[in-house]
């Protein structure tokens, strides 16, 4: 039966090409959106995940990293350091700013961190070196691309000239990131003696939960999160707004695929109902004809999956290296398996459209 399916599929190559194009584009949409979603998921908290902190001390009531402001007095670090189990305390400022070069302006997240401890510093560097002194900055790849700056250039942040010493990986979801040492940032953004967060490392052998409880008991007006808790609430805050949109678009992509395959199958069935009737007259069972329709749909969907996979490599490459898309587009084995399963489901769903028509074809049509 497989050869019959293949023959029926390939005998009208134009129709097959149109169907494959539609299916591949639908699956390409699913592939791309899935990659963006996964990139979004990881990049949303890449900065927190790579902060090196065991826990975050934030102003009480600040629910997450993105949609809340946390202000803490800089001298609170002494109180934190005295709590049993605390190994190091590093202040962190994270604030919106404007970076500029050669007349081009770009809104950024500007982080001031303790360059000595390194907590809250840049993600792994792509090129250049870490900050070692004043008036230096590390920019992430997105900012480097948008302002066309590189190691050795000078960039202006809120009107202050900083030398670019390094370029880091993507870490900003809502805006590109620049990093400088804490003192520079305090001066540039006018924070005086305030900071936004304290990043805490716990001593070896100390329990993070125990230290967190001790910090809550010792300090007033703060909330304490473990690094993974802070990443979790921050990720949820971002994804709760965007995930449904991406999922809805993926669903629409899937539905488009089902309709493209299904309608093509259906119109093919209508056009060829005489041939199906002849096969029925010759003795083919309804079940076998339905299997033919099913296999045709699944073969189209799987071919579309293969083509879409190849196109995805091209599209993702274009987005990342030509357009400098600000979000990493990522895939893992689970997501590819899920898209493969979606393709099978798409093919199966599409076979349902012509199924009823096929089962009702009268074999006596062969005598007319």
């Amino acid at each position: 039966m497989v050869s019959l399916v293949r023959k029926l599929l390939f005998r009208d190559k134009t129709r097959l090409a149109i169907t494959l194009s539609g299916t591949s584009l639908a699956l390409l949409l699913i592939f791309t959106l899935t990659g963006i979603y996964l990139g979004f998921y990881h990049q949303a908290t890449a900065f927190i995940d790579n902060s090196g902190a065991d826990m975050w001390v934030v102003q009480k009531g600040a629910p997450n990293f993105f949609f809340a402001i946390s202000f803490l007095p800089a001298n609170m670090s002494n109180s934190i350091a005295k709590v049993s189990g605390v190994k190091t305390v590093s202040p962190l400022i994270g604030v919106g700013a404007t970076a500029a070069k050669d007349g081009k302006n770009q809104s950024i997240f500007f982080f001031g961190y303790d360059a000595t401890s390194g907590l809250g510093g840049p993600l792994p560097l792509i090129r250049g070196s870490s900050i070692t002194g004043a008036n230096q900055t590390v920019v992430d790849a997105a900012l480097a691309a948008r302002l066309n700056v590189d190691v050795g250039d000078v960039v202006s942040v809120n009107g202050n000239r900083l030398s670019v010493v390094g370029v880091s990986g993507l870490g900003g979801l809502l805006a590109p990131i620049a990093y400088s040492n804490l003192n520079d940032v305090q001066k540039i953004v006018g924070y005086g003696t305030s900071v936004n967060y304290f990043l805490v490392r716990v001593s070896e052998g100390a329990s993070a939960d125990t230290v967190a409880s001790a910090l809550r008991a010792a300090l007033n007006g703060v909330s304490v999160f473990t690094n993974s808790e802070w990443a979790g609430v921050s990720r949820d805050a971002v994804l709760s707004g965007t995930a449904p949109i991406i999922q809805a678009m993926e669903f629409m992509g899937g539905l488009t695929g089902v309709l493209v395959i299904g309608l093509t199958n259906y119109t093919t069935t209508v056009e060829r109902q005489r041939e199906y009737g002849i096969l029925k007259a010759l003795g083919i069972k309804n079940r076998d004809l339905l299997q033919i329709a099913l296999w045709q749909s699944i073969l189209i969907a799987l071919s579309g999956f293969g083509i879409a996979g190849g196109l995805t490599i091209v599209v993702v490459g274009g987005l990342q290296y030509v357009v400098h898309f600000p979000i990493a587009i990522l895939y893992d084995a689970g997501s590819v398996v899920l898209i493969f399963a979606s393709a099978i489901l798409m093919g199966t769903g599409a076979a349902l459209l012509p199924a009823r028509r096929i089962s009702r074809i009268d074999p006596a049509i062969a005598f007319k």
Partner: protein
Amino acid sequence: MHSSESNTSEILKAEHLSKTYGKGYAAVHALKNVSLTIHEGELSLIAGPSGSGKTTLLLICGTLLRPDEGRVSIDNLQVTSMNQGSLPEVRLKKIGFIFQEFNLLSGFTALENVEVALNMNGIRGGKAKKIAWQAIDKVGLHDRANHLQEDLSGGEKQRVAIARAVVNNPKLIIADEPTANLDSKTGSGVIETLRDIVKNEGKAALIASHDVRIEGLADSIAKLEDGSIVR
């Protein structure tokens, strides 16, 4: 499948078949109490004008239509009482069909059109190809086997249809106006080929046709008029 004891040489036995289309004033009595029997090696012709009931008789004998009354046995198998789901297998294994319009699959070669019938019967791959070649050979189309059906002449197409009809070795061949779209010489050749197969392989053929040239090649002739056999 149900079988009943009867004369083994009877390939087709139709008894008291009646069929009416529509109801009331619009009712058309397509068949009225028609009976016929065809034996092994027999080529039987159903003659009659358009609308006389020939196609209805073929449809019923081919298990594609249920009679209102009467019954049909094919190769000792009582088919009129069988459920609808079992009939495709009867058609696949017991009956070979030849149509006026040839009804070959477009985009398929002559050989592939024959192979399809074997595939439907569960025979695939090299074995199917070998048997299909033999059937194509039998109808004298060895040199045209790999040509698309669209590239074949009418006579060649009908020969492919014969090969397809007999490739699963059915006992009964049902042919509807098999020479209607062929010229005189080609039509005679097609019928002679069919007759040879029927005689040599112990099959029976029921042919509906207007074509008077076939009458000389038929073993028996039944003439239908207004749904009844008149001779």
